[in-house]
């Protein structure tokens, strides 16, 4: 029984990691290519979830909702890139943080204005309900397996996009030397808009997938944003590979910590104390891991530049 539980929890950790990867990939791509810290990335996640919930409620189809979430997040992403973000590339990080923080407030209040303050309803699609048996006698929810599959597909897709296509070549060129690529005649501002919209679409996809599991409400993006920042700091800012590894580390460490710490502590102290102390320790575990990794690799596991 314990083996089955362990496998299930590892899958849970992987699923959380994959979801964080979808967020962190966009964040790290935007930082790597444009040098921009985008705090509003969590709002794009929220927009994806709201778009999916609204369209699914109107049409009855989760899949249409998923398409809508990609379109809405990419659309809003492109819009704010052109309207606001574009003016921030030459400024320092403090200005970027201030402006994108303002965007969080504007987008949150905008969502509240459109959809109200009460959470929306979004359920997982019929085709993905139910569970599959695991070795060892346990079972695992099909929908969460599907999230893991989507995450792996996105990781492979991003790898192919960046290493095999012309757009990927430009993205890599933009990362290493932006003046030079502009001088070579590449339309840098369109490239930036495309990269930003791509990152936004990934965040929107994560929001829609997770919205079916959690509550679709204003402010849902900010807790995830903090974790996504932890992920890209661990993985090395600007590196997609780092984002993937960092996300899986954070997901697995967080889930296993919540699961194992209280029971481990219960071996040495009374059960009541072990549950409270275990819960408190589990909530700081990923930050401890981050501090340890940074102590040995100050610029993250796969730093692209110093």
């Amino acid at each position, binding site marked *: 029984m314990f083996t089955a539980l362990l496998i299930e929890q590892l899958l849970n950790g992987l699923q959380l990691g994959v979801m964080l990867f979808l967020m962190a990939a966009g964040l790290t791509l935007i930082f790597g290519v444009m040098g921009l810290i985008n705090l509003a990335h969590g709002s794009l996640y929220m927009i994806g979830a709201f778009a999916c919930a609204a369209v699914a409620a109107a049409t009855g189809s989760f899949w249409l909702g998923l398409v809508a979430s990609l379109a809405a997040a990419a659309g809003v992403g492109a819009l704010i890139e052109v309207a606001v973000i574009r003016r921030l590339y030459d400024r320092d990080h403090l200005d970027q943080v201030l402006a994108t923080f303002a965007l969080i407030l504007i987008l949150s209040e905008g969502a509240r204005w459109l959809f109200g303050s009460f959470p929306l309803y979004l359920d997982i699609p019929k085709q993905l309900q*139910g569970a599959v048996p695991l070795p060892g006698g346990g*079972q695992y929810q099909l929908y969460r397996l599907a999230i893991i599959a989507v995450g792996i597909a996105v990781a492979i897709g991003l790898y192919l996009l960046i290493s095999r296509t012309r757009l990927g070549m430009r993205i890599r060129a933009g990362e290493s030397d932006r003046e030079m690529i502009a001088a070579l005649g590449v339309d840098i501002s369109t490239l930036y808009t495309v990269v930003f919209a791509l990152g936004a679409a990934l965040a929107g996809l994560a929001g829609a997938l997770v919205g079916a599991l*959690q509550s679709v409400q*204003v402010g849902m993006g900010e807790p995830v944003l903090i974790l996504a920042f932890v992920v890209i700091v661990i993985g090395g800012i600007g590196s997609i590979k780092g984002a993937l590894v960092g996300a899986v580390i954070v997901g697995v460490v967080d889930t296993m910590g919540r699961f194992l710490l209280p029971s481990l502590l219960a071996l040495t102290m009374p059960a009541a104390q072990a549950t409270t102390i275990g819960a408190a320790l589990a909530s700081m575990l990923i930050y401890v891991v981050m501090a340890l990794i940074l102590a040995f690799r100050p610029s993250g596991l796969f730093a692209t530049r110093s």
Partner: protein
Amino acid sequence: MNRILAASLFGLSLATSSLAYAEPVKIGVITTLSGGGAGLGIDMRDAFTLAIKQSGNKDVELVIEDDAQKPELAVQIAEKMIQGDKVDLMTGIIWSNLAMAVVPNTVAQDVIYLSPNAGPSALAGTNCNANYFNVAYQNDNFHEGMGEYANKDYKNSFILAPNYPAGKDALTGFKRFYKGSLAGEVYTQVGQTDYAAEIAQIRASGADSVYFFLPGGMGIAFMKQYAQSGVGIPVMGPGFSFDQDVLPAVGDAALGVKNSASWSPDLDNEASKAFVESFKAEYNRLPSVYAAQSWDTANLILSALSKASVKDKDAFRAALKAADFKSVRGTFAFNKNQHPIQNIYVREVVKDGDMLTNKIVATAFENHKDVYADQCGL
């Protein structure tokens, strides 16, 4: 951030206003109007302003501000209201950790605070205060009701709550009356949205029932994931996990779940019926327990204002303590620690048309008191 969402509801009174209300009264309302917990605060604010509006009392001025569910922000706003706006009374806080940050300092400055929701145990016992009135409940109460009711059907329960003052109070309250054994006890992070790890533990624990206290979005996330996971073990919770603010987002997964509260939209008394009617007419939705408690808070203040001047603190406190108002909860009185003595009901989630709501199926306690009152020196 620090913006005023709404200032005075009404301007200066017309010359014709009644003499009993001649004196202007300023009430500071700090509540959660943005972020994930906003639904609760908005219900609180809407019921409060509606009660004041219906009373026709034009001398009450409300200063309403949003705490964004952040303790540090709530403390700043409270200071501003006491020092700057010179409010006579304060109310509005939803969350226990915010109440712990604001209330002790407020009552120490001789400002009367009436709690429309949070009731941390730390403020009900030895630290009770003459300026602190809790119109809602002591945090343990709803959970005690469900613990008592659970004895009927269950012997091995798995319990979980967030790791903050109200979460600790919740599980303490449940265990106080629950006589069976515990299959597990877990504290989760405040604001946690993914419960896969906990649900896997529940599945493996061999429990015959699950009791969870997860207010707001946390409860929605848990309940959805629990239903999707296919773990068939029956769940129960306090009313907060199955109230009008969360039911539409949880959906049919909540149908049939038993939960405990001091009030339900179908409670059979005149004040309650009138409240539900006017709330529905004004806002086009059903009120939650938070709205009901807030409505009572406003009416308690109005009843005291008609008896005593708010400037005469002793007389005003006595008028509040008399609790001479028509509560939507039917019977209502203050215990010596100025926390309610009230009935705790067990409700069941049902479908009324295509709207999910609650109906009362049992009474867990009549005229229930909290256990901390004995330690209070008032």
